[in-house]
């Protein structure tokens, strides 16, 4: 089995971002043509075989989302490409938008065709302002070549795409917050149901997909679901675009077949740990993911194998931290991030984050007491189960996993060890 396999990223460094002719030579728009000729049911079937799951982090099967959306009747529908890649440690969508914008655009058109929308938006984060410019140029080329704004491949399908710039809010990666901000309001999540698939942009059904998901759709239709699914594992067919960062020799974006182990990813693909140091922990799936101790890296990178151990693929980020890092400092950084990014709508997230940050800093300053660990756990669980949206629910994930795997580190930083002892009956 190859350790890297370029399907979704096959066109990287093969064409300039606005060279549409070269893109067509590479098989561009054949996927769209196939979709139009063979129809929506064919597309959904192919996606079912390829079993592509939402690559923004949620992991919901794309074919299911599209099958439901396809059937929904409405006077108007919209599709949105979520390029608000804000999960720290994640930069794969950046590479896809930069190195293969036409594949993403083609994926958006296919999603529009299946969903029954004639208008699409791409929501690109403000931090990628330079990509917004190149992407707009690529769209302009599409218009000149009459792929946008004109009927394509002898059908009556006409599509148009507009770029919307984010403004630096992590919570806007959440679909309903993203749509709120597209309507000119602050990005606070909406009450569900209705979900955005039912009532989204301007109250119309809106299909939102991640950049990599859409590039994956184009890829699957181009090469065929069966060929794609030959790679990977039984339950996680195909490939995943991952971002390896932190204390590794060669950080970067790589495409791997599901099933290779984390050890292979870190040592064979990313060149191993800097200066030959030992791995202390990994954080998988971005800042909202759990910490994995360094001795667990023989797990295969697939949805099922990671889930079994309480981890997840998430956004595809793999952050490697070596033994020079203290878990507590890392957690403070995670906590600061969420404290800053909480939208403030619900109490568990807003106040929980404030208290967690305060308590964690006590460990750094050496004023923490044993009972603080218990308080942290209590607040973390409250946030996990009662927060309004995914942000608050996943904000304490790293912390809870750290308590599970690295409890002695907390304990070593407790100033007053007399108050309570770990593992001996009740906490006080």
């Amino acid at each position, binding site marked *: 089995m190859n350790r890297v396999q370029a399907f979704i990223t096959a066109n990287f460094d093969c064409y300039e971002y606005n060279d549409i002719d070269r893109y067509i030579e590479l098989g561009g728009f054949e996927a769209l043509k196939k979709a139009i000729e063979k129809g929506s049911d064919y597309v959904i079937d192919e996606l079912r075989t390829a079993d592509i799951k939402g690559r923004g982090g949620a992991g919901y099967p794309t074919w299911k989302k599209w099958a439901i959306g396809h059937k929904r009747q409405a006077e108007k529908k919209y599709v949105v490409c979520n390029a608000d890649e804000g999960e*720290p440690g994640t930069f794969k969508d950046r590479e896809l938008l930069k190195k293969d914008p036409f594949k993403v655009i083609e994926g958006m058109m296919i999603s529009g065709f299946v969903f029954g929308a004639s208008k699409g938006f791409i929501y690109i984060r403000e931090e990628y302002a330079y990509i917004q410019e190149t992407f707009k140029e690529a769209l302009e080329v599409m218009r000149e070549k009459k792929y946008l704004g004109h009927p394509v491949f002898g059908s009556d399908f006409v599509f148009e795409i507009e770029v919307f710039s984010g403004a630096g809010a992590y919570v806007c990666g959440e679909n309903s917050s993203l749509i709120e*901000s597209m309507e000119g309001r602050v990005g606070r999540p909406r009450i569900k149901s209705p979900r955005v698939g039912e009532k989204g942009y301007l109250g119309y059904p809106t299909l939102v997909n991640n950049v990599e998901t859409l590039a994956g759709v184009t890829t699957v239709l181009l090469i065929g679901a069966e060929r794609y699914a030959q790679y990977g594992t039984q339950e996680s067919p195909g490939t995943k675009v991952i971002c390896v960062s932190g204390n590794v020799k060669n*950080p970067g974006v790589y495409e791997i077949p599901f099933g290779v182990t984390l050890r292979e990813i870190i040592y064979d693909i990313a060149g191993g740990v800097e200066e030959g140091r030992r791995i202390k922990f990994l954080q998988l799936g971005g800042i909202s993911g759990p910490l994995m101790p360094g001795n667990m890296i023989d797990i295969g990178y697939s949805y099922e194998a990671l889930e079994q151990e309480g981890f997840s693929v998430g956004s595809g980020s793999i*952050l490697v931290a070596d033994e020079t890092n203290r878990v507590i400092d890392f957690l403070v*950084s995670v906590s600061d*991030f969420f404290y800053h990014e909480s939208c403030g709508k619900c109490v568990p997230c807003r106040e929980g984050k404030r208290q967690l940050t305060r308590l964690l800093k006590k460990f750094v300053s050496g004023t923490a007491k044993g009972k603080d660990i218990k308080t942290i756990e209590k607040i973390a669980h409250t946030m996990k189960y009662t927060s309004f949206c995914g942000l608050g629910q996943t904000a304490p994930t790293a912390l809870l996993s750290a308590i599970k795997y690295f409890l002695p580190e907390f304990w070593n930083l407790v100033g007053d060890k007399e108050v309570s002892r770990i593992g001996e009956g009740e906490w006080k």
Partner: protein
Amino acid sequence: MLNTQAIEAILKKYQYDEKALINILQDVQEVCEGRYISEETAAHVSEELNISKRTIYEVITFFAALREHPVGEVLIQLCNSTVCKVKKNAEVKAALEEILGIEMGETSQDKKFTLEYTTCFGACDVSPAIRINKVVYGNLDRDKTLMLMRELKGALYE
């Protein structure tokens, strides 16, 4: 001074569409002195779009890319998220503060430099990284940071 002409051009570009408020404010900010939205500017946009000032301020204070305080000619943003922490961004912070003579969150007296923390901007493969007026510089250490800043200062003060 309120740059009404430039603001009007932006509002026209977005056809006075209140749905585009976030993009409008981002563009407006760029044409204002100090690259921020002053109370006067906010009031002006509020009137032109017929949106309450309260809503405008709710948006400005919510989004990190919108500012209600002026920044220097050169805005330097140091990523303070997890990956850059692991890659020892503290070294870069110390170098920046030392050579610019200001601390995080401050603007130099001559209004040339502003130094601030920012959350992840997706440059984790070249961490630790900074953004200088939205342009990313990565793989930094103390020496590289000092060199970069000397060049920048040379160009600004020559």
